[in-house]
Each structure stands twice: as structure tokens, then as C-alpha cells.
């Protein structure tokens, strides 16, 4: 067309949208590409850019300039297939993640398992299951380990050498305990009204609590 050698040298004064036959200066073209890539909902091909820009524009060249301009910036001009788009600089991806911390209540199974570990540590999985009267899912244990509330203790010196679980310092911190021994015994729980169920029938084993405590102490000394 009328693109002659001098066209590029001309001053970028004239309104670009009017110059149908003379391409706007490269700086303007760069702005155009920038605006189009910014506003378009998907990556844009060079062909598409050329179609949307005034006649005689060279989007490919404008892209080269633009890409350079965005080097090291917070967004980068990226090639996506044969199209182009602005993308967040890879190192800033972390800004696109808003961590919403959602606090959920621990499941009943987890609470019970944790309670058993804290009262009976070191305790094996089989023992937990015996006390709870139901099997303990792998997930429950994993969750408590992930929360860093329980960890593996020493292996029990019994056949099969099962691993034991003990509570962690994190656990003590979270529950505001100096040591797991500070956990209230059953009797205290009952007097505090924490045993929602009726007191044990007539036979009540009054020394159980004591047992508990002593057991526990023993266990902790071991741990």
C-alpha cells in the first residue's frame, strides 16, 4: 500500500484512528496491542490483532516491543499457542492465592482418638480401637499427625512390635496444657458435669480414676 519508507519517521502527532492508509507510529501500535490484549477475554492471535488494528499496523513488531517493555514486570506478555496474552509473572503466583483459613471442628472420631492418645499414651492403634470399640481409620490418625497433635512414639516391645502414638508439644500448646498429666481424670470430668450420661450403674468403679491416673503417669514416664 502506501507504506513508504518515511512513514515510520513521521511524528506520532496525528490521530491514529483516522490514518486509514498510513499506519500509526509504532508507539501507538504498541499501546493498541497492549489495550487489546488487556481487555480481551482470551489470548489473541497476531492475525486477530491485525484485524482489529488500523490498516498497515504491524502487530508482530508491536508485540516484540511490548514483550520487552513488560520484561521483569508484575505481568508478562506470554505466547499461548499462536496467540498472546498477559499473564501474572510466574514468581508472583503466590499473590493469586488468597488463603482463607477455615476452621473446622475436628470430627468426633478424631476427637476421641486424640483423647485416647492423650490419656493413654503411648498407645497402639489396636489399643485405641479396643478402647473406642470401633476401628480407627487410617485417615483419622493421619489427620492428627498432620495437625501435629500426635506423633509416633517408641515401638511397643510386644509381638509385632506395634508403633505407639503419643501427643506432641503442639498438642499441649494448643490445648493449653503443661503436660498431658494435667488432663482431668474421669472423676473430675464427672464432677465438672462433663459426663453427659448418667453415672455408672450401682457398681461404679470408684478406683478406676485412680487407676487411670497411675496408668497414665507410668505411661508418661515411659514416653
Amino acid at each position: 500500500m502506501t507504506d513508504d519508507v518515511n512513514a515510520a519517521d513521521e511524528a506520532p502527532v496525528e490521530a491514529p484512528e483516522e490514518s486509514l492508509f498510513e499506519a500509526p507510529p509504532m508507539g501507538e501500535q504498541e499501546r493498541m496491542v497492549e489495550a487489546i490484549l488487556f481487555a480481551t477475554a482470551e489470548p489473541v492471535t497476531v492475525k486477530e490483532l491485525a484485524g482489529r488494528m488500523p490498516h498497515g499496523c504491524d502487530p508482530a513488531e508491536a508485540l516484540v516491543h511490548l514483550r520487552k517493555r513488560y520484561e521483569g514486570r508484575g505481568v508478562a506478555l506470554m505466547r499461548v499457542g499462536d496467540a498472546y496474552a498477559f499473564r501474572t509473572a510466574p514468581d508472583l503466583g503466590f499473590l493469586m492465592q488468597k488463603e482463607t483459613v477455615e476452621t473446622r471442628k475436628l470430627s468426633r472420631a478424631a476427637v476421641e482418638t486424640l483423647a485416647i492418645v492423650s490419656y493413654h499414651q503411648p498407645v497402639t492403634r489396636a489399643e485405641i480401637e479396643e478402647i473406642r470399640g470401633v476401628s480407627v481409620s487410617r485417615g483419622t490418625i493421619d489427620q492428627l499427625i498432620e495437625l501435629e497433635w500426635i506423633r509416633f512414639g517408641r515401638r511397643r516391645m510386644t509381638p509385632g512390635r506395634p508403633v505407639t502414638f503419643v501427643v506432641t508439644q503442639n498438642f499441649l500448646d494448643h490445648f493449653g496444657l503443661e503436660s498431658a498429666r494435667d488432663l482431668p481424670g474421669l472423676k473430675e470430668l464427672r464432677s465438672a458435669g462433663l459426663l453427659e450420661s448418667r453415672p455408672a450403674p450401682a457398681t461404679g468403679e470408684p478406683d478406676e480414676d485412680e487407676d487411670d491416673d497411675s496408668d497414665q503417669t507410668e505411661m508418661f514416664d515411659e514416653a
Partner: protein
Amino acid sequence: MSDSSTDPVIDVSDRLAAEALIVDVDGFEGPLDLLLTLSRTQKVDLRQISVLALAEQYLAFIDKARDLRLELAADYLVMAAWLAFLKSRLLLPPDPTEEGPSGEELAAHLAFQLERLAAMRDAAAKLMARDQLGRDFFARGITEDVTRTRRVTYTATLLDLMQGYARIRTKDEFRPFVMDREKVFTMEEALGRMRGLIGFAGDWTDILSYLPDGWEMDPAKRRSATASTFAASLELAKEGRVEIRQSDTFAPIQIRRKSDDG
């Protein structure tokens, strides 16, 4: 704000406009809008407008509309009445005994209202003439969702923990209670026992003597065994194998083997 849009020289266009007003009566957004349009025919700044002339224009308009039997909304008529009143106030010399605002005050307020409405119209036009989002300038097309990494932290309170433990332990305590079933002497057990013994019971015997050994002392056990033994006795009586008697209310219940004749 000057209405320079129409050529001020030609009077005819005004009349045509005024006539057009009648045709377009529905096109007005209320009497104030109509007044504002009429005021433009005065070709002066709204601040210098002759409210008297405007009132006359308006009243003339209403009369014409009536002649044409156009239905006018009530607020147009209310305005007409008010303007007629205003006109009389403006024309008559002020009566010092009369209460309320003077004609000039009322006229000034009307002029203010018109000016304000015109100003708002102007502002609205300027506002709409601005570059607008989605028309002249644009927002980001490819938005990146902030991926909400929902980090779930689980929490439990010491109370949860203790309650959990209590729950388990009370379940434990419940087990001995289940064991208590050992203290229950079922009717089946009583029946089995009595079937074995009844053959030896030729004479009236207190059913309490049929209680199993060791069940007499513990009150709970005795209650259970007594009940089941009694029930078993009834069952045996129904089968026709024993006879039952009780001499008096609360007196001992006695049974004896029924003499079998066959």
C-alpha cells in the same frame, strides 16, 4: 444554558413548537418539565425569565389542551391552578394584610426550580457523555481468579477432648451394665431349671425355693430370679405340668407337680 439551539429570530418556530407541545403532551415528565420547555421559548437565561409570562404560556397551553379535550393528568391542572394564583399575586399590588410569601418569592422559587432542573438535565447529559466502562474503556478481559486455597485448620477445644474421652469411658462403664445381664435370670433359664426340678416336687413348695443358688442374697438378682421363676411356673401350669396356689394376697406362692395320670 441559553437555548441557542433554536434561531431566536423566527417567531413562527416558537409557535410551531408550542403547537407541537400540545401534540406531545404525553412526552412531558410532569408540569415542571413542561414549564422548563415553555421557558426555553423566552430565549433568555433562566435567571432572567419572566415567570409571569411563563405562567401565561402555561395557562394558555392548558386551555388549548382542554379545547382539544386532551386528558390532562391532575398534576398539570394543580400546577395550572397554582400558576393562576401566582399570576394574580404578581399582577396585583402586594396586600400587606395578606399572609404567606409574596408573589415575587413564589416566582423566584419557581425560577430556582426550573434552573435546578435544567442544571440537573445538563449534568445528566454531561455524565452520560463521559467515557463509560465497557463502551469507551475496558476492564481486564482475562481475569485470574484468586484461588482461594482453603486451608482448613481443624480445631478442638480441651472441652471437646474431655467430652470425647468421657464419652468413651462412659461407654466402658456401660459395658459392665451389659454384664449385669448376668444378674438377669431369664425365663428360659428358669424354665429349664424348673423342668429339671419339678419331677421331685411332689408336694406344695414355695416357688422361692426354686431360685438358683446364689441368687437369693443380691436384691437385684433375687428380683430377677423370682420374676422369671414365677413366669416359668405359670408357663408350666399352662402346660399342665404343675399346679399353683396362693393362700392369701402376698402369701407365698406354692407349686406342686400335677399328678400325672397318663
